[in-house]
């Protein structure tokens, strides 16, 4: 690595740090930082001197890491191979493009630069993770280094796998040819693991006990094929699971070797990707020539393949409430970008298909599929607001434009939250109602109960989603320098730390936000139950729902007020 690139990274990190420190002069940021530190100290205070809670967490981590860690990492890697998603980690910013690509630097040097640039974020994530995993027998500094190596390797694996995925998806035959070796290796490893998992599922269904399930799974994973497939992940995890410093050194050397191998692989994969991209560029040039020379039909077909812009689901008339345009725009954004939503539906479907292929009792399969859809759908209320960002968080990037529109702040805030609520609730309700329908078909619930649950879901889930999404938007406006604005990006290993902090903050706020509706529901519901019996609970539920709606309305008004009062320059949203 040339010295000036290291200098660049050092200045970047230092300046970011200084800027964050300066933010703490603002009382709002100072209070949040203090609360965050106190929370962290309260939860992880015993990280230096192990305590009972720490020992328990450490014990769980070591047990889990040994038993299932390599498999979890392998499945995570499989996800990157199959779905890609982190290629942008090698993308250059405008300034980097202007200064680095025009400078006398080799491609390898630029990749080294990008990999090194991610390391401070990885170190921060590793620090947080090492605190959470307190109580493992390993001294904290060694635990930190081990996790940092683990995350750095996964970061490079993620980029390289995504590059292979992109080469195969975008560059046709030339991309496939140049990435054939890793694709063959990955396919073999995946096949070995899937075969083991499929056999495990068959055996476990014949003898459905937890003890047997774990034993059988471990047994199958230790067979030669899966063992080889999981070997790199075992090597990576080994130092974090070491019993003491003496037993740490050798596994750590192994993990470093895996990291070094990944580094070389990344360089090679990127070179292959660039070559394939260039070849694809030449192919497009020849396509253009074909158009010029009359091969129009072929060229048009190719263009149609490339351009698949979905038509808007929602209509847009020229007149009416103007804030509706914001809702329309944001729903359209989600429609055209949310591959994750499609994946949320594809994954349960894929598992369902695997189970059908495995054959068994039809009712069992329906119950499993129904539970999966219902559970997955309900979980969207927790994780959806974190991932879905077609609201003010997205639009803060365009605040310079938004502010010039003749829109009432409260209408804008409602439209922003409304768009994300509509998107999230639509996907969620499809999954939940499908789950209820499947469970009803399997005889798990009666039609009347199913109808009640579906009606409840229709009424309650959008309100919960709106609450979560409004909370997220409030956080973004209150702390625009801490919360990522703009579209959702496939965050890599370097973003884990920041995402963890935002998630903890959100969960806390959401937990606080559920208190008033619960209190209102209980205050009205409890006496109603005593007086009326079961219908009283229904009344309590309605009151809780109305209280939640009222709370959402109040939070949206607060969001509007905050938006109105936010000075985009002072908040650092525009320069």
């Amino acid at each position, binding site marked *: 690595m040339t010295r000036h690139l290291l200098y660049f990274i050092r200045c970047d990190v230092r300046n970011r740090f200084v800027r964050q420190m300066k933010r703490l002069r603002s009382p709002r940021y100072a209070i949040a930082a203090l609360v965050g530190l106190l929370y962290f100290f309260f939860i992880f205070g015993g990280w230096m001197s192990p305590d009972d809670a720490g020992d328990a967490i450490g014990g769980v981590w070591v047990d889990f890491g040994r038993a299932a860690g390599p498999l979890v990492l392998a499945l995570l890697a499989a996800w990157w191979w199959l779905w890609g998603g982190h290629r942008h980690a090698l993308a250059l910013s405008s300034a980097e493009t202007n200064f680095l690509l025009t400078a006398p630097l080799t491609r390898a040097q630029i990749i080294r630069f990008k990999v090194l640039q991610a390391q401070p974020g990885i170190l921060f994530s590793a620090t947080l993770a090492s605190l959470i995993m307190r109580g493992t027998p390993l001294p904290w500094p060694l635990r930190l280094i081990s996790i940092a190596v683990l995350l750095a390797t996964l970061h490079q694996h993620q980029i390289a796998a995504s590059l292979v995925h992109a080469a195969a998806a975008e560059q046709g035959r030339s991309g496939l040819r140049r990435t054939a070796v890793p694709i063959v290796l990955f396919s073999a490893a995946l096949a070995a693991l899937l075969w083991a998992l499929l056999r495990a599922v068959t055996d476990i269904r014949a003898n459905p006990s937890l003890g047997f399930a774990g034993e059988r799974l471990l047994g199958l994973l230790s067979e030669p094929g899966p063992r080889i497939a999981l070997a790199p992940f075992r090597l990576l995890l080994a130092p974090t699971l070491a019993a003491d410093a003496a037993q740490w050194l050798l596994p750590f050397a192994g993990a470093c070797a895996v990291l070094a191998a990944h580094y070389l692989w990344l360089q090679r994969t990127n070179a292959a990707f660039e070559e394939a991209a260039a070849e694809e560029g030449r192919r497009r040039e020849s396509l253009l020539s074909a158009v010029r020379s009359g091969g129009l039909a072929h060229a048009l077909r190719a263009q149609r393949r490339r*351009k698949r*812009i979905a038509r*808007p689901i929602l209509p*847009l*008339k*020229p*007149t*009416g409430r*103007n804030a*509706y*345009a914001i809702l*329309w*725009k944001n729903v*359209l*954004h989600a429609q*055209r*970008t949310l591959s994750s939503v499609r994946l949320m539906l594809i994954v349960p479907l894929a598992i369902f298909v695997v189970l059908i292929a495995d054959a068994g009792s039809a009712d069992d399969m329906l119950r499993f599929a129904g539970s999966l859809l219902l559970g997955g759908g309900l979980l969207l209320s927790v994780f959806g607001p974190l991932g879905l960002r077609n609201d003010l968080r997205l639009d803060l990037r*365009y*605040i*310079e*434009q938004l*502010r*010039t*529109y*003749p*829109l*009432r702040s409260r209408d804008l805030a409602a439209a922003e939250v409304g768009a994300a609520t509509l998107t999230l609730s639509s996907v969620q309700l499809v999954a939940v109602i499908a789950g209820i329908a499947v469970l009803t078909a399997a005889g798990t619930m009666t039609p009347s109960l199913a109808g009640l649950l579906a009606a409840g879901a229709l009424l309650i889930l959008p309100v919960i989603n709106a609450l979560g999404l409004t909370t997220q938007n409030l956080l973004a406006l209150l702390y625009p320098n801490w919360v990522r604005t703009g*579209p959702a990006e496939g965050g890599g290993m370097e973003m884990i730390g920041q995402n963890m902090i935002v998630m903890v903050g959100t969960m806390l706020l959401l937990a606080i936000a559920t208190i008033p509706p619960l209190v209102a529901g209980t205050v009205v519901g409890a006496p109603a139950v005593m007086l009326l019996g079961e219908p009283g609970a229904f009344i309590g539920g309605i009151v809780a729902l109305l209280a939640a709606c009222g709370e959402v309305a109040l939070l949206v008004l607060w969001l509007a007020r905050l938006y109105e009062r936010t*000075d*985009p*320059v*002072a908040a650092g949203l*525009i320069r």
Partner: protein
Amino acid sequence: MIRVEHLRRNYGDFTAVSDLTFTVQPGEVVGLVGPNGAGKTTTLRCLVGIIPPTSGSIHIGGHDLLADPLRAKAALAFVPDEPQLFPHLTVIEHLRFIGRIYGVADVESRAATLVEELELADRQAALPDELSRGMKQKLAIACGLLHDPRALLLDEPLTGLDPGAIRRMKRTILDRAASGAAVILSSHLLGLVEELCSRILVIQRGEMVAMGTLEEIVAERPGLAGRGLEDVFLALTEPA
């Protein structure tokens, strides 16, 4: 009409714009010029409601921007130097979106005229990523002109445009002014300012240094007689 009175904008202890007072009459094109960091962008951002002024008042088309922002904003359009486009809306969808925001009932016919005029007709289904810098700028301009604003504020509007488009854009600015719009044009291209603007507002370190026609400005400084805007600008803004 745009009326600005005693506009001041502070960033902490730093005063970016200080006691700025001026008016732009319907049909007038005023050039806003000043060296880098003079406060031009801050002034424009205050005038269109992106940032609030620390003190002072701004009226757009007779509406107080602070007291009645919706009516004031409905009458104005701002075209920033960097086009702000939504990455997942096509060219025509941008225009429909803006049409709904401003309640333009005949958006389809106006959009058709604008895309034709700005040579975007064959790119209507394209996303911003598929447009060149100049085309993005044209789309931003089309969005600004769609609702026929009574106050038009342009920040370096010709950046990225080809010579033909520059000529047409100049014509468009003059046509808009002729049809009664009050136009503020901020640019470092002094030739452009001299060519299009009926009056010039020169600011430096947030303060108004001169305001008027070139002749009026020169008349107050006999030493600059016979000089062009560039010489006048440098004489006004560079330390002696």
